[in-house]
């Protein structure tokens, strides 16, 4: 599926910025597009689909109207196909960080420096931004960014360091294999002698252990040792050895992703228990022109279902049109009978 991805750091002006490219955000492009409103999508993941592609790409979903069975990836692919005529612009691998008033609209700035100005903002951020899980170890905050990292931005950061990688998924194993030649000493740490990661990576890791090029330890992390953000060692625990310390000056925990509300909390809109209360006629938040659709909103009777997000997007688009095209009359049409809608869809 080819989509238009904008380079990070670029500047744009459009009608609507949609934060979150999950199924709800994607279908919103369709509903806005039927009203001739252009959209840009921002997502922290590096591909569209949100939870559908990140959490359950291969799991079947059975409650999408008219699709008896579709996987998370399948639904995403179909939505991308359906919204293709509207040629939305995607800003992927970026987090919407700041929202500022700009004339009668808003400017969204991402953590990659992309700036998009639009009349309306649609928050379709689901459960929030996918961010790496941070293990609940006392005092870990002090080391984060200095000797504890949740991603490898530059491999050189780890050159000649004594590194511990924790986890058993593909990220843990892939980075074990990639960083092993670079570091002074590498220890892979996991709570069991078994891995969720691809068997091929596991075999390669075991071969390195057999050659004495790295160590694999089955244990749990108990505590971190060090001072001023500089890690000196990790206290581990297992049944055989009890508590013991592994010296190291860098730790990479890979425990998958979790969803955090993130900077949306600072956008100046009312929140209720990390959800955005909306008017169910327009799906507008407490701030006119800022909408919330899908799992991130709340209202009496709310159901966190994909189909609810689709409905909410349709009503949002009507209100967004009133803001974006105040001089025009909103015309309600059906795709079955309207030749102008069919032209937009490229079928007439």
């Amino acid at each position, binding site marked *: 599926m080819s989509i238009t991805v904008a380079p990070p750091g670029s500047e744009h002006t459009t009608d609507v910025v949609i934060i979150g490219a999950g199924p709800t955000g994607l279908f919103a492009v369709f509903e806005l597009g039927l009203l001739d409103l252009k959209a840009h999508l921002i997502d922290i993941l590096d591909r569209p689909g949100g939870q559908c592609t990140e959490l359950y790409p291969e799991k079947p979903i059975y409650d999408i109207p008219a699709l008896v069975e579709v996987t998370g990836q399948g639904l995403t692919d179909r939505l991308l196909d359906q919204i293709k005529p509207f040629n939305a612009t995607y800003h992927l691998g970026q987090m919407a960080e700041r929202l500022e008033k700009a004339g009668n609209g808003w400017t969204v700035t991402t953590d990659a420096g992309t700036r998009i100005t639009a009349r309306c903002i649609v928050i379709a951020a689901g459960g929030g931004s996918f961010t790496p899980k941070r293990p609940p170890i006392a005092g870990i905050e002090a080391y984060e960014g200095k000797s504890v990292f949740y991603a490898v931005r530059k491999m050189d950061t780890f050159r000649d360091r004594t590194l511990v990688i924790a986890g058993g998924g593909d990220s843990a194993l892939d980075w074990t294999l990639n960083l092993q030649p670079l570091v002074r000493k590498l220890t892979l740490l996991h709570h069991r002698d078994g891995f969720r990661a691809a068997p091929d990576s596991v075999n390669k890791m075991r071969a390195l252990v057999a050659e004495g090029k790295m160590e694999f330890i089955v244990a749990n992390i108990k505590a971190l040792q060090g001072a001023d953000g500089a890690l000196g060692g990790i206290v581990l625990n297992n049944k055989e050895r009890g508590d013991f310390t592994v010296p190291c000056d860098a730790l990479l925990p890979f425990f*998958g992703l979790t969803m955090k509300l993130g900077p949306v909390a600072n956008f100046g809109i009312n929140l209720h228990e990390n959800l955005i209360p909306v008017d169910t006629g327009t799906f507008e938040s407490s701030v006119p022109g800022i909408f919330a659709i899908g799992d991130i909103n709340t209202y009496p009777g709310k159901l966190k279902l994909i189909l609810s997000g689709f409905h909410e997007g349709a009503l949002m688009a009507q209100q967004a049109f009133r803001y974006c095209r105040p001089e025009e009359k909103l015309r309600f049409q059906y795709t079955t009978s309207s030749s102008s809608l069919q032209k937009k869809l490229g079928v007439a």
Partner: protein
Amino acid sequence: MKLIVTDRNGTVHELKGRDDWSAMEVIRDANLPMAAECGGACACATCHVYVAEAWLERLPQAQQQEVDMLDFGVAVQDNSRLACQIRLTEKLDGLELTLAPESL
């Protein structure tokens, strides 16, 4: 049937278990703090619980999918399970679980 759940402050909650519900659903329904982000698809490990020693052997064994997904749990122990994969039955009346710590 009952489900005895200790939250992260150490407070013990006696919840009414329902046959065929998952432990995650009962805990979420009681508004205890459990993210359960994927909604029970065994795809996120945010319904991580510790099972009381006495109950460990009495629970049906974890399927491979659950064992693998626990690799994405934080603070996993030998008695770790995913609550969405524990299906409640009368045999599990009185099951004792503790909510595991969450990601910071």
